[in-house]
């Protein structure tokens, strides 16, 4: 009896042990299955295509090509396409291509006499091509007029910028580490650029904290274009009866404010002689920058980021198209002498001041922008986006930028975007207005983008978003449509506006 009881207990124990072993084995196998089958969301679900377009227009009275006075009228249209392609769960390839076509009254005045026939529709003679032979291209008795207030029709009136970039990014399995790299290329009539860079991003603290570090370099090259009269002066070797100047009257103004035609064969010291001018020696312009970004989620409704860029530029940092006039040199003109007394006003329709030099700036620049963003989710209808940047460089420019944007959600698919931006900057050490520089200075510019000013920008936008992409064009669903308008007004009179639109398609 006792033996039977012992056998029964032994069988029960065996069963228990078997059940426990089976449970453990099953548990382990489930656990193994759990650890090997981690669900990984694709970084980008499917191919996205952005079609973007902008139209920009500006006007003002301080054109840098004409030495700090004159029309700044400019329009630009830029169509762009951006394609983001998921190579797999973790990697994205993005191709970005754009064309910017602009018409500029100020840059057309590289040769301000072109529209009146000074060059008779032939070579503008504003590049540094040493093979130019412009002798006798103009009729001796042609009417020659030009003005900083009137757009010329020279070759530089229109230009096209073409640029593109290819970038690649990889995210780790846990999505806590991302690295990326990019290359870019752009070209326009007087400028070519090659760029490359990379960045790494680390997320931690349950993706509440993010640190990103990036670096990039641009290796750029000028194809310098010069003001016609300066380039022609070098080509004619200072002979005002030769080349571009042949048969053209040059007007001077004496101490009694009397206008007279100069003796072009007279003493060069008492004639127009831009002796500071020379062709630029270094056509390279390289820019190296590093960026550090720190982002932090503060609560379920608030997050901020801090950023710091350090930028070093080296090479020809001035623009060879931009004229400078010296206060310690006499003024000389080509065109209608009756307009000389009103040269600095828009009444001047026919005379142009011969430049003393192009702008000259140091061959290095060290820039540091630093600032933060702070976004707050007020409720499901309202978000506040803020931005502040302090900027300083070793050219003496200090600036503050503050921006606020308040997305307001209307219904489930529409959002409107009112925004305001304030900007202020001090002048660069080398800036002075028209005809106020001294020829003895090493550096000088009359580019009002480097002057002291404040600016206000008001914006409004509307966005349509359909995360389900119900509307289709062929195989692509429309995910998002954006439209933005911004009005920009500077305290020195420049006014500009820009309208931008975009449609994002997602491949179904």
């Amino acid at each position, binding site marked *: 009896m006792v033996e039977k009881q012992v056998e029964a207990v032994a069988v029960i124990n065996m069963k228990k042990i078997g059940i426990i072993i089976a449970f453990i084995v099953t548990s382990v196998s489930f656990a193994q299955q759990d650890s090997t089958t981690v669900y990984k969301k694709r970084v980008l679900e499917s191919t996205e295509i952005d079609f973007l377009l902008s139209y920009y227009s500006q006007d003002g009275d301080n054109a840098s090509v004409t030495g700090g006075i004159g029309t700044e009228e400019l329009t630009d249209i830029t169509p762009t396409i951006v394609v983001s392609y998921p190579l797999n769960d973790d990697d994205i390839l993005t191709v970005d291509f754009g064309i910017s076509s602009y018409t500029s009254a100020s840059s057309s005045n590289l040769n301000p006499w072109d529209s009146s026939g000074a060059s008779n529709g032939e070579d503008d003679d504003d590049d540094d091509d040493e093979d130019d032979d412009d002798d006798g291209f103009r009729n001796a008795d042609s009417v020659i007029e030009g003005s900083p207030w009137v757009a010329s029709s020279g070759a530089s009136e229109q230009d096209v910028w073409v640029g593109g970039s290819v970038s690649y990014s990889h995210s780790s399995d846990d999505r806590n580490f991302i690295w990326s790299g990019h290359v870019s290329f752009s070209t326009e009539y007087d400028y070519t650029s090659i760029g490359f860079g990379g960045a790494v991003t680390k997320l931690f603290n349950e993706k509440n904290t993010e640190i990103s570090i990036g670096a990039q370099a641009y290796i750029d090259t000028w194809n310098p274009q010069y003001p016609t009269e300066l380039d022609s002066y070098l080509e004619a070797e200072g002979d005002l009866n030769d080349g571009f100047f042949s048969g053209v009257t040059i007007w001077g103004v004496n101490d009694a404010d009397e206008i007279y035609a100069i003796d072009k064969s007279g003493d060069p010291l008492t004639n127009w002689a831009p002796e500071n001018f020379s062709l630029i020696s270094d056509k390279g312009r390289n820019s190296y920058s590093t960026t550090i970004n720190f982002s*932090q989620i*503060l609560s379920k409704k608030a997050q901020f980021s801090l950023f710091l860029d350090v*930028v070093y530029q080296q090479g020809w940092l001035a623009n060879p198209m931009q004229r400078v006039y010296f206060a310690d040199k006499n003024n000389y003109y080509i065109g209608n002498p009756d307009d000389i007394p009103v040269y600095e006003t828009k009444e001047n329709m026919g005379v142009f001041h011969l430049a003393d030099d192009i702008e000259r700036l140091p061959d290095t620049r060290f*820039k540091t922008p630093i600032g933060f963003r702070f976004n707050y989710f007020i409720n499901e209808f309202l978000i506040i986006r803020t931005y502040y940047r302090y900027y300083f460089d070793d050219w003496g420019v200090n600036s503050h930028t503050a921006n606020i944007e308040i997305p307001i959600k209307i219904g489930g698919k529409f959002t409107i975007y009112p925004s305001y931006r304030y900007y202020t900057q001090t002048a660069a050490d080398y800036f002075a207005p028209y005809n106020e520089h001294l020829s003895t200075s090493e550096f000088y510019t009359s580019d009002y983008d480097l002057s002291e000013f404040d600016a206000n920008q008001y914006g409004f936008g509307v966005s349509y978003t359909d995360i389900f992409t119900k509307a289709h064009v062929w195989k692509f669903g429309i995910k998002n449509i954006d439209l933005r308008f911004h009005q920009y007004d500077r305290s020195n009179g*420049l006014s500009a506006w820009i309208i931008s639109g975009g449609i994002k398609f997602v491949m179904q």
Partner: protein
Amino acid sequence: MKKFGLLVIAIVSLSSCVTVKEYEKVNINDPDMKLSDYSIDRFKTNALVYREAASGGNGGKTGGGCGCN
């Protein structure tokens, strides 16, 4: 700069007390909460790089790639 540094330290110290879980990030993940410019604003940013002496700090150009400031 010192004030800015102190502000940064203060904010970072405060923030380290809070950890928002993934399932609590529905508001943070709203596209309008993104801590960067909208892609549609690239044209506006680019125009300002030409018209102002300051640049950078916004994901746009910092001086290279164009004959701008």
